[in-house]
């Protein structure tokens, strides 16, 4: 490829095919937008059932990390993968508090290979609160209780993250 940058305008027929006009912002039928919003709410209602299997896997992996030193790193990687998905899903389906705790656990486990006992306890604490949020059907930010749990976890992470082996 040449060192001289080239600017290419690919053929794009989408605007024309969808009924749009060049330079004129189009719009989407309000009724369709409403139907799409309603669909999120509808799917969100069944989210606690759908995320249950992931939470059960998290419990098993947290136990594995705590009890099986040989498979500890593998368990932490598994936890990190699952909470990455949950942090994207939670708030989408109306559970921002779940996303908050999943994000916290994601950051805490990212790059963590040899956790000490207190760090393992902190992982378990995250999994417990995430399970409680889903079991309790806590939508929204969870109010003062949610803020309190969040603050406690953040303080504990700050304390233990400095001691990452």
């Amino acid at each position: 490829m040449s060192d001289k940058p080239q600017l290419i305008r690919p053929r794009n027929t989408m605007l024309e095919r969808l009924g749009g006009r060049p330079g004129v912002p189009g719009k989407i039928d309000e009724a369709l937008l409403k139907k799409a919003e309603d669909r999120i709410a509808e799917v969100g209602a069944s989210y606690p059932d759908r995320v249950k299997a992931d939470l059960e896997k998290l419990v098993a992996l947290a136990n594995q990390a705590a009890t099986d030193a040989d498979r500890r790193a593998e368990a932490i990687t598994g936890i990190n993968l699952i909470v990455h998905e949950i942090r994207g899903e939670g708030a989408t389906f109306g559970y921002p508090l779940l996303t908050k705790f999943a994000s916290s656990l994601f950051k805490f486990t990212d790059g963590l290979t040899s956790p000490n006992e207190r760090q393992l306890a902190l992982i378990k604490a995250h999994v417990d609160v995430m399970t409680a949020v889903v079991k309790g059907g806590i939508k929204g930010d969870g109010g003062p209780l949610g803020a309190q749990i969040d603050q406690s976890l953040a303080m504990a992470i700050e304390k233990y993250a400095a001691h990452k082996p």
Partner: protein
Amino acid sequence: MASTYNFKALSILLIDDAKPMADLLGSILKELGVGKITVHTDAKRSMELLDSVATLQTQGTPAIDIVISDWRMEPTSGIELLKWIRNHNSDGIRFMPFIMLTAYSDHARVMAARDAGANEVLAKPVSVHNLVRRLLSVIENPRPFVACSTYFGPDRRRKSIPINFPDRRKTSPH
């Protein structure tokens, strides 16, 4: 006067290995009236599909108009899929609009997606508003592509900022 879009003629390839998210996005696109939605949970399958429609892409109506893909997937990630698309030998594939879906929202990740050739980044949590904004950006404001020795993808300069020196980039229609 603004026209109302009819998405019936739109074909979207959606890839996410997390089934709840894949199902949700598919449902939203369906409610918005998108005519054809292909959902995959494995990017390798998407590569096979894109290979099979490569010739059709440049003749008449494309088989796929837009790719929306999650970033973190196993065994093939969204970034790997995007790089594969941008390096494809068919123009119908390598110029394909690509929206990267991700739970990563930090600046470095957004820049990495941009540098790999993503047209748009859609951060999770997903909302109808955010999804529609990204779709409309790709439909209404298709950015020209830049081809040079170090980059191939949509122009990373989104704003038209006046410069007081000649633009060295050579413009050519596709």
